[in-house]
């Protein structure tokens, strides 16, 4: 039986955002841009889908960037470098279909900046001209600027409050870039659902193919439960085996946003219980 997967490196990017580099040589060897993983930290834990943010075949590691939004992700944030997690299953989903494009725009919003990175690198390695847009709420939350700069012919940073780079949303920057670069062949947009929807709305009039990565609610991540189902081009698709990458212009975002709220009540209750527990145990709240 497996003794778990070790977190060999942890970086904290903000009070709620952190990166794990996890030792999983087989997963690292098979991972491709666009893949995701199912992660469970302990026996009582949930299986959580996380998109691959990076992989290093030589080191035998796979990285994920996580946002502490609920009980499980807070608990995960409390883990330290050297700790082990119980399950780290993958790579899952279909890898992104990356081919040489004369020009491609890669857009990452918030946490979505991480999973865009392997695609950016792959496009660059394929010989494409790469324009990147990464967006955050505010300057303190910015991460991977240098990593992106190294692979991008042009890098644009946007913050909602204007504390760094462009003031405003990544979709506004995308609009400007699409107008300036009429030879753009493809857009990749990954981030919160409203951000991906906004990017698709921006690129639609330009007729530029726009790929999004859907991280919908899953139990197994291998096609069994159907929890992640999403309507794409009027057809029923499973994000876990048909995706997670889809043509964003075909995705029914309204439905997906509604489906993502299915466990909101339970999630809030779990978080409250967890916070109460932490208070009682006098532990420092994770993420603070």
């Amino acid at each position, binding site marked *: *039986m*497996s003794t778990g997967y070790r977190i060999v490196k942890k970086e904290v990017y903000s009070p709620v955002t952190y990166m794990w580099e996890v030792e999983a040589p*087989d*997963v690292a060897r*098979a991972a491709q841009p666009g893949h995701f993983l199912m992660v*469970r930290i302990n026996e*009582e*834990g*949930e*299986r959580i889908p996380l998109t691959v943010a990076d992989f290093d075949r030589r080191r035998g590691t796979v990285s994920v960037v996580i946002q502490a939004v609920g*009980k*499980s992700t807070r608990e995960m944030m409390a883990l330290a470098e050297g700790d082990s997690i*119980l*399950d*780290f*299953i*993958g*790579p*899952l989903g279909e890898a992104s279909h990356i081919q040489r494009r004369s020009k491609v725009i890669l857009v990452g919003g918030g946490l979505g900046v991480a999973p865009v990175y392997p695609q950016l690198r792959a496009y660059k390695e394929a010989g494409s001209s790469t324009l990147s847009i990464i967006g955050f709420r505010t300057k303190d939350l910015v991460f991977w600027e240098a990593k992106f700069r190294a692979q991008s012919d042009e890098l644009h940073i946007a913050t909602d409050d204007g504390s760094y780079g462009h003031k405003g949303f990544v979709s506004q920057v995308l609009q400007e870039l699409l107008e300036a670069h009429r030879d753009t062949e493809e857009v990749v947009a990954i981030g919160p659902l409203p951000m991906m929807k906004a990017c698709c709305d921006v690129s639609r009039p330009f007729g530029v193919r726009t790929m999004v990565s859907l991280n919908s609610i899953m*139990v*197994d991540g*291998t*096609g*069994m*439960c*159907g*929890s992640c*189902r999403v*309507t794409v081009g009027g057809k*029923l698709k499973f994000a876990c*085996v048909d995706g997670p990458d889809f043509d964003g212009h075909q995705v029914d975002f309204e*439905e997906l946003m*509604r*489906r993502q*709220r*299915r*466990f909101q009540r*339970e*999630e809030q*209750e*779990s978080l409250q*219980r967890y916070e109460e527990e932490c208070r009682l145990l006098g532990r420092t709240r994770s993420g603070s």
Partner: protein
Amino acid sequence: MFDFSLYASRLTPYVAKKDRFMTTVKTIHTIPKGRTPMPEQEPEVRATNFEEVALGYTLPEALREADRCLECKKPRCIAGCPVGIDIPGFIRAIAQQDMRRAYEILRQDNPLPAVCGRVCPQESQCEVRCIVGIKAEPVCIGRLERFAADYAMAHFEPEKPRITPAGKRAAIIGSGPAGIACAADLARAGVDVTIFEALHMAGGVLKYGIPEFRLPKSIVDREIALLEQMGVTIELNTVIGKLFTIPQLMQEKGFDAVFVGTGAGFPKFQGIPGENLNGVFSANEFLTRVNLMRGFRHPEYDTPVGMGRQVAVIGAGNTAMDCVRCALRMGAEKVTLVYRRTQKESPARAEELHHAMQEGIQFQWLTNPVRILGNAEGWVSGMECIRMALGEADASGRRAPVEQPGTNFVIPVETVIYALGTRANPIIAKSTPGLKTNQWGYIEVDEQTGMTSLPGVFAGGDIVTGSATVILALGAGRRAATGMLRYLGLRPAETPAAAAAKA
């Protein structure tokens, strides 16, 4: 009139053996008439817990029931068993209180007797053919199987298999019933076996699907532990087709043969409006949340189930019964099952249907959903159904249900669960060039050997046949194991019982 001459030939050898329990000749008239009832939790009690419903026979109960077997010379029950268990043989061993032998006889043909004794549809397999059943009620073969297996597990050290390494390696994909059966036979014959399981827990449908109250997970764990004692390695969290492909297993990992027993767990929906509303689940999602992820113990376990107060389940197979009964135990106020045919056509085990009825599930037979209704926030608020009637028999001999216009009505529900069967999971087929599948995505195999279109790659269970039963998957796993051994140039191992029979 009952033809007693049927048994005449049986009597001589039986009496000649001077059975210590039998002073007179056993006939249909001398055996206890009624079946020995199974002790069970009371319906109103069990509907609130996840403990096993059927408690199992005590020794006196088992002996009484075993005494009902006529030990027919030409038993018909064996032919009804998909794996051909020597049924009169093991029952006779119980009657003789030789429980070790009873268990060995079972294990000879069935690697999971404790499981099958609980979940097999005996009433349509062995028991329907029982000769006692012609005049009286058939012998409770399944309950005796369970008794013998539970007794052995409680009292005996597991068999110490004498395994001679054969110098061959086999990979088994999936740790469900087909994979377990195949692994057991291969390991016995000395093959070095590794099972690759995609989930974090071994057992497949026995773990994620069948609920605790019907098959306690400790029973499955015991069976898996036995397999590991035989030298089988189990690699969890390994999705073949993603982490490694079948060609990689054979070319890079050094496996001489591969068995695909991945099951067919890809949920089906009906394609009616409203299926993506919040509150609509596949049976797989509902059951994995409850069973695999232990959602029935939320919040102790993190995974929520998200079930409403009023629940409807579509379908009437065993999975549907598992869903309605789980929903009840999860605290649903009202649980309704809708099925487009009648109770008679329900594919569920008689016992599950009976238990569900006792527990207070509402059944709407001859009813089909046409639309799921939602509220302004996108949550399920009801299910519109139409009444059906059974029409003319179709080519398969089944009477097709026909809609009765103007009979639409709404069932107010917050949760709808689809238990309409499953399709083939595409992961293996997509990642294995040259692997032939049929139009539904199921893997094509040679019926005799279980070999697929790829030399050395075998398959069996639901991924070949589509949704079926545990015992059929076991049978397919064993058939493939025989085919694999032949492919590897090896002979099947003799079980202790078979060796003893020869001696």
